[in-house]
């Protein structure tokens, strides 16, 4: 491991790797990425692979639109097949309030060139044969949203970054961040120290802990989010189904599994990644209510990862005011994976060429309490 680097990225998840990948492609490779486990250990290896452009704020819509475009070329660029399948996303609303919000979101998305359509229940049932129409008040459908397999996306970005000279150190835990006269000077790890003036905190659910090592407080909190997969089945489900009444989402992977999860309003903030019977029961109830023919489908496996939640549902991006050289790229909730290509590209241009971008003012670490960002409400899980 190097003992000196221009930039140290803490967190070998998709956000840190996308940043390293784009920086390296722009010619900057004096970077060490530090990962506490194996690649795919954290949320980047534990999510359902959903990629959607249906959001309630313009920023998320634009970032997602750009990410879809970048995901489409990622396999070609990296040589790793990420199994990106644009089967669409179908949102279902069961009450007047969320139906009204859904209509408003569709209008906003359309105004930004994202071709989501409000459709009726009979069209939804044509897109998803076997869907129960009962109780559904409104539907929104975007055919260019989709799902991918997260693991090869992580490996592809990591492999290309490495080939371009980035060091990625797995099983390397950050134990300290040295700050001298208000500036970062060193990152201390379980395998030695690295002298550096710039550190990116892309540690997802662990980012508040990392920030504390540098003497900074972040307002985000980790929440366990559970997910399951079924046995593999022949292709029968094109879009990701999202039920806004309980935050249920599921789609079919390219391996044929049904993969999904749902919100749990009673889940406390914690660093638990245990699997629960409560989740199995609630998820199976919800998915068989939406599609009764899933009743006989065998559930194969369940696991959990962390949502890295901020108070306003938006990420934390940019330099901390308290410590010079300490840069936040965290707080992506449950949708960091799908926004990572755009975040990495915009972030690399900002870090390397000082290219201004509004996300670094709107989502600045010190915004809380004084410059609140518009709350992103279309959050599942």
């Amino acid at each position, binding site marked *: 491991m190097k003992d000196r680097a221009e930039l140290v990225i803490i967190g070998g998840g998709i956000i840190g790797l996308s940043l390293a990948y784009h920086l390296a492609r722009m010619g900057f490779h004096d970077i060490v990425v530090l990962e506490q486990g194996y690649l795919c250990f954290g949320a980047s*290896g534990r999510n359902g692979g959903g990629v959607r452009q249906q959001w309630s704020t313009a920023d998320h819509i634009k970032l997602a639109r750009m990410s879809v475009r970048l995901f489409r070329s990622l396999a070609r660029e990296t040589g790793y097949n990420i199994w990106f399948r644009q089967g669409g996303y179908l949102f279902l609303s069961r009450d007047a309030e969320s139906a009204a919000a859904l209509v408003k979101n569709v209008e906003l998305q359309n105004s930004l060139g994202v071709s989501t359509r409000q459709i009726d229940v009979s069209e939804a049932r044509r897109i998803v044969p076997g869907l129960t129409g009962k109780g559904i008040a409104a539907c929104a459908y975007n055919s260019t949203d989709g799902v991918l397999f997260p693991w090869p996306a992580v490996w592809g970005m990591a492999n290309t970054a490495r080939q371009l000279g980035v060091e990625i150190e797995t099983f390397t835990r950050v134990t300290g961040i040295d700050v001298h006269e208000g500036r970062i000077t060193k990152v201390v790890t379980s395998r030695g120290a690295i002298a550096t003036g710039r550190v990116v905190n892309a540690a997802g659910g662990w980012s508040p802990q990392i920030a504390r090592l540098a003497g900074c407080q972040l307002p985000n909190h980790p929440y366990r989010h559970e997910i399951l997969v079924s046995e593999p*089945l022949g292709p029968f489900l094109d879009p990701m189904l999202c039920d806004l009444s309980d935050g249920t989402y599921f789609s079919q992977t390219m391996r044929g599994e049904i993969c999904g999860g749902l919100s749990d309003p009673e889940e406390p903030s914690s660093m638990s990644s245990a699997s629960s019977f409560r989740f199995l029961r609630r998820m199976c*109830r919800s998915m068989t209510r939406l599609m009764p*023919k*899933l*009743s006989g*489908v*065998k*559930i194969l496996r*369940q696991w959990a990862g962390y949502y890295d939640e901020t108070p306003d549902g938006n990420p934390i991006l940019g330099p901390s005011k308290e410590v010079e050289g300490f840069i936040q790229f965290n707080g992506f909730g449950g949708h960091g994976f799908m926004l990572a290509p755009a975040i990495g590209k915009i972030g690399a241009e900002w870090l390397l060429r000082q290219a201004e971008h509004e996300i670094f003012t709107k989502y600045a670490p010190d915004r809380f309490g004084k410059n609140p960002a518009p709350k992103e409400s279309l959050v599942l899980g």
Partner: protein
Amino acid sequence: MSKTIICRCEDVCLADLEEAFKHGRHDLESLKRYTGFSTGFCQGKGCTAHAARFLAALQGGDDMVADPPRVRPLLHPTPAARFAGRDDGGENP
């Protein structure tokens, strides 16, 4: 040419493990994700020990260097209806 099968559910052979090892997967969790062993119907009951043994051999020792991969529920594949509290059966789509 004969093949040594490691994982019958996901059709993973010894050659696949060797290939994955060559590509830098030097721990069981990474080997599992790269080759897919232990992600099939038996949930790793038939293959994890074989994979662990071969990883130890590839690492050039008899001892297990890496931790075993985390065991995930369910123990047996079980129809969704059982957890949903529905007894209307249902069939595979």
